[in-house]
């Protein structure tokens, strides 16, 4: 379709939006940007973190999914009870591919279980608190877990069940039974209708973990360079690979939010030397709160892409400023890059020049562009499913973001210094020196500055836009999630899932980069797409040689 390929980005946008009713078009117009070059983009706002229009087939999920599924999902030793009808618990049961290493002989691992109060009509009419109490009791009796968490689903808020009261009450009751077994119990008001996307759920989850668990343990564990990794969820084993690299460098992972994590890790998060933020969207506020409370600085890192991984490692080493660490990091990078370079040498000639689109999550659509760049591929369109403006435009716009009614409902914690444990990790002097050397604390520039002119940036993309984009722009690969996958592929374009990696991974770190190169090579060069047409489609006319 040469004529269509020749469309300008602006024409593409127009072509897509013209299908919409006026009101929809007006709204989508603000969430659909054509990249006009770095300078021009300085003055362009994108609308993000706003409601999805009813009837639009969106990628987004709900607050419960963001809270129970995303944030608490990867923690293995908490019994997570969904308070609600059975569905929510069922759908969030083992569906996120968070891996966990529970190989220690006595390690608890409840991630393979689904716990639910399975509310019925009776509970809706007469209230579900008694059933919830009993469920907590039964969970305690069966498993004696370290912690029990309660998650509210849509009807819970409406019928007025006070889940927090039940949590308090049962915590008190159960801790009184067996003084040798301490159980923490807390709840989340993460009803699905709150906020406009999963993002609200992340916030609710993080706030409650911060309130009920973080800081419980302030004893510093062993390790010279103690960091927390925030916003890494160990999809497909990413966290394992990051830990492998950190270990190799001599950096100690104190706590993970929340890939391959445990209750204990959350509890001791306050003692780290540094917070490293992977997914800015889902957790930057936790980094802020820890800085306020205990004086832990934070930096943005990215372990997606070999170069990004190297860069992040160097940044951590630079933060600690220890020559031995800095040298070790260089050694590790040099060693690991051998395989990366060898693989690229094989793969890159087959991937160079191909195009990708990424519409997914709250940071992956940005991070994964680094991997495509390493493969010589261009990202010609990108956008997030549940990000806020700062994830597109950078943290500089935070002061300008208008908080609307939906977001206002999500509690913001007010944090103060912990008088007993506040301890700035660096002196003002040290901080200034680092900043003078170009080191950036608590900074994230967002997606847009990393994208090229004439690309498209689209927030909360929907099925109509997705399919139209593909039809017009025919990318070689499209990155999104499972709901998009098969529709995109029916159009003849491979879709790489960046939520669950299509059961692949890890894609983080050096080994992950290699995995990703090979996977993308497989996808964009697959011969499967040559089979779409049958011989009789290619040559439909008949030469009736034998007829007669």
């Amino acid at each position, binding site marked *: 379709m040469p004529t269509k390929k020749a469309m300008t980005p602006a024409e593409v946008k127009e072509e897509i939006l013209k299908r919409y009713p006026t009101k929809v078009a007006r709204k989508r117009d603000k969430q659909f940007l054509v990249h006009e070059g770095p300078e021009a983009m300085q003055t362009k706002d994108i609308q993000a973190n706003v409601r999805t229009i009813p009837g639009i087939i969106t990628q987004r999920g*709900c607050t419960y999914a963001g809270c129970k599924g995303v944030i608490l999902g990867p923690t293995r030793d908490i019994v997570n009870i969904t308070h609600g009808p059975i569905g929510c618990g069922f759908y969030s049961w083992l569906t996120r591919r968070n891996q966990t290493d529970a190989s220690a002989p006595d390690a608890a691992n409840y991630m393979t279980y689904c716990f639910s109060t399975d509310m019925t009509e009776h509970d809706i009419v007469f209230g579900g608190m008694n059933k919830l109490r009993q469920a907590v009791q039964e969970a305690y009796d069966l498993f004696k877990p370290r912690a029990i968490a309660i998650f509210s689903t849509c009807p819970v808020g409406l019928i007025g069940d006070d889940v927090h009261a039940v949590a308090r009450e049962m915590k008190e009751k159960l801790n009184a039974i067996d003084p040798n077994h301490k159980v923490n119990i807390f709840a989340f008001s993460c009803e699905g209708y709150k906020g406009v996307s999963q993002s609200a759920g992340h916030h609710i989850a993080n706030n409650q973990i911060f309130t009920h668990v973080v800081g419980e343990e302030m004893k510093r564990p062993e390790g010279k360079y103690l960091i927390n990794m925030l916003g890494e969820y160990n999809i497909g084993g990413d966290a394992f690979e990051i830990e492998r690299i950190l270990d190799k460098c001599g950096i100690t992972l104190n706590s993970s939010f929340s890939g391959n994590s445990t209750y204990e890790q959350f509890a001791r998060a306050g003692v780290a030397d540094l917070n490293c933020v992977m997914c800015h969207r889902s957790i930057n506020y936790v980094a802020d709160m820890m800085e306020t409370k205990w004086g832990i600085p934070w930096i943005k890192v990215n372990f997606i892409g070999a170069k990004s991984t190297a860069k992040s490692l160097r940044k951590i080493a630079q933060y600690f400023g220890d020559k031995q660490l800095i040298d070790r990091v260089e050694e590790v990078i040099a060693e690991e890059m051998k395989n990366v370079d060898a693989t690229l040498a094989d793969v890159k000639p087959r991937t160079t020049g191909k195009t990708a689109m990424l519409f997914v999550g709250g940071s992956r659509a940005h991070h994964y562009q680094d991997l495509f760049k390493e493969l010589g591929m261009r990202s010609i369109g990108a956008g997030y499913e549940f990000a806020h403006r700062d994830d597109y435009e950078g943290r500089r716009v935070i002061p300008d973001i208008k908080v609307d009614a939906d977001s206002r409902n999500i509690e913001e914690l007010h944090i103060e210094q912990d008088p007993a444990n506040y301890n700035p990790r660096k002196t003002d002097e040290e901080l200034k020196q680092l900043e003078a050397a170009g080191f950036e604390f608590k900074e994230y520039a967002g997606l847009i500055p990393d994208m090229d002119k004439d690309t498209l940036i689209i927030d909360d993309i929907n099925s109509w836009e997705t399919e139209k984009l593909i039809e017009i722009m025919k990318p070689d690969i499209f990155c999104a999630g499972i709901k998009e996958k098969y529709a995109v592929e029916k159009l003849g374009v491979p879709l790489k899932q960046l939520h669950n990696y299509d059961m692949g991974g890890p894609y983080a770190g050096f080994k992950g980069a290699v995995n990703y190169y090979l996977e993308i090579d497989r996808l964009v060069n697959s011969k499967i797409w040559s089979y779409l047409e049958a011989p009789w489609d290619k040559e439909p006319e008949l030469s009736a040689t034998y007829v007669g």
Partner: protein
Amino acid sequence: MTLLRHTSKEIKDRSALTINPAKTCQPVGAMYAALGIHGCLPHSHGSQGCCAYHRTMLTRHYKEPVYAGTSSFTEGASVFGGQANLLQAFQNIFEIYDPEVVAVHSTCLSETIGDDMPQIADKAVKEGKVPEGKVVVTASTPSYVGSHVTGFANMVQGMVKGLATKKDKKNGKINVIPGFVEPSDMGEIKRLCKLMDVPIILFPDTDGVLNGPLTGKHKMFPDGGVTVEELRDTANSMGTLALGEWGSSLAAKYLDSTHKVPCQILGLPLGLTATDSFIDALRKMAGKSVPAEISFERGQLVDVMKDYHQYLYRRKVALAGDPDQLIALTEFLVSLDMIPAHIVTGTPGKKFEERIREITKDVPYKVNVKVEGDMFMLHQWIKNDPVDLLIGNTYMKYIARDEDIPLVRHGLPILDRVGHQYFPTVGYKGGLRLLEKILDAILTRKDRDDPETSFELAL
């Protein structure tokens, strides 16, 4: 170590905590049913997470696109009602996606608020938000009642409630409601009815919708599905055969009582005897005789049942799934002289236990059965009394691995194997397929475990 390491042999009473459910909620069943109408966009009236979850589950089960709209409730809608959202959704859906039908189901949220969907749909029609010639059907599917099977049944009833229109003349057809089965099963039922030379209206019909081809040309609304015209015409059929009481009886009874279309409620036609009942009922209702081809297929199934009886005889099976499926499976297993030792369904319905007791009354074994049970319970039973085979959905694979028992995947969802979309388990051919799978599981285990002295070439 084990995957389900906290599951102990010791069984404790539970009255409030469900662990590892053997059911999910109504709306996903309603969404699946709605996909069986040609040109239909299912719509979830609730918060957008429900819709995302349901689409995800069905997409993973079928590895096919699953489209559905959502009313995208936020806090405001939850407080003030979802009418505005739904009206807006209708307008957007018809303008942007242009379906023939929108099939709206409710959620726990909209039900708790008390939204009246039929009334809102009427309003949408009156306000012109539903274009001329397009239709809306609705079903009330509160998640806190029943299960996904209930939701399926409610939506199937919604189709005829909303569309069935009585005319003066009978149409010479028979309505067949296939129950909550796979697209491949629906295809097989159509094939059998065609062989019987019985004109039918099959609804819903996801064959051709959720097992589509890859051609590079994508149709948002594939060619398959029962048409609106056919659904209207269900009121004029000679009779209705409802397959599966849980999934199909509501709609059948509605047509019977409202439009005087006599109905007969059968089990799912899975396994020899249940397929016999279906074919026999069809023949009697339509006044047709059974062609040799069907008798031939039946005889093939009986032949294989006989040939492999020795490997099946007294083998113990644990099953989890939906009532209609479990009843048919249990009947099939019993007909093979196997022992359905442990059976759970999460879907409520007291009759279930009675039916299972009746089917297994001559089985020389104490059969555990629990309605509103869960897989944790099933697993504990298995730990106390091990079995040779598991039959159930993909979640059973954790039990399978921990206990080292082979699993035949059946039911919803199957997230880790292909086949259910394309190859039926209903009908005699479906029975053969199921038998092949059961045998392969048992014999592969035998080939693995037999000592070298008694490793067998032929079986």
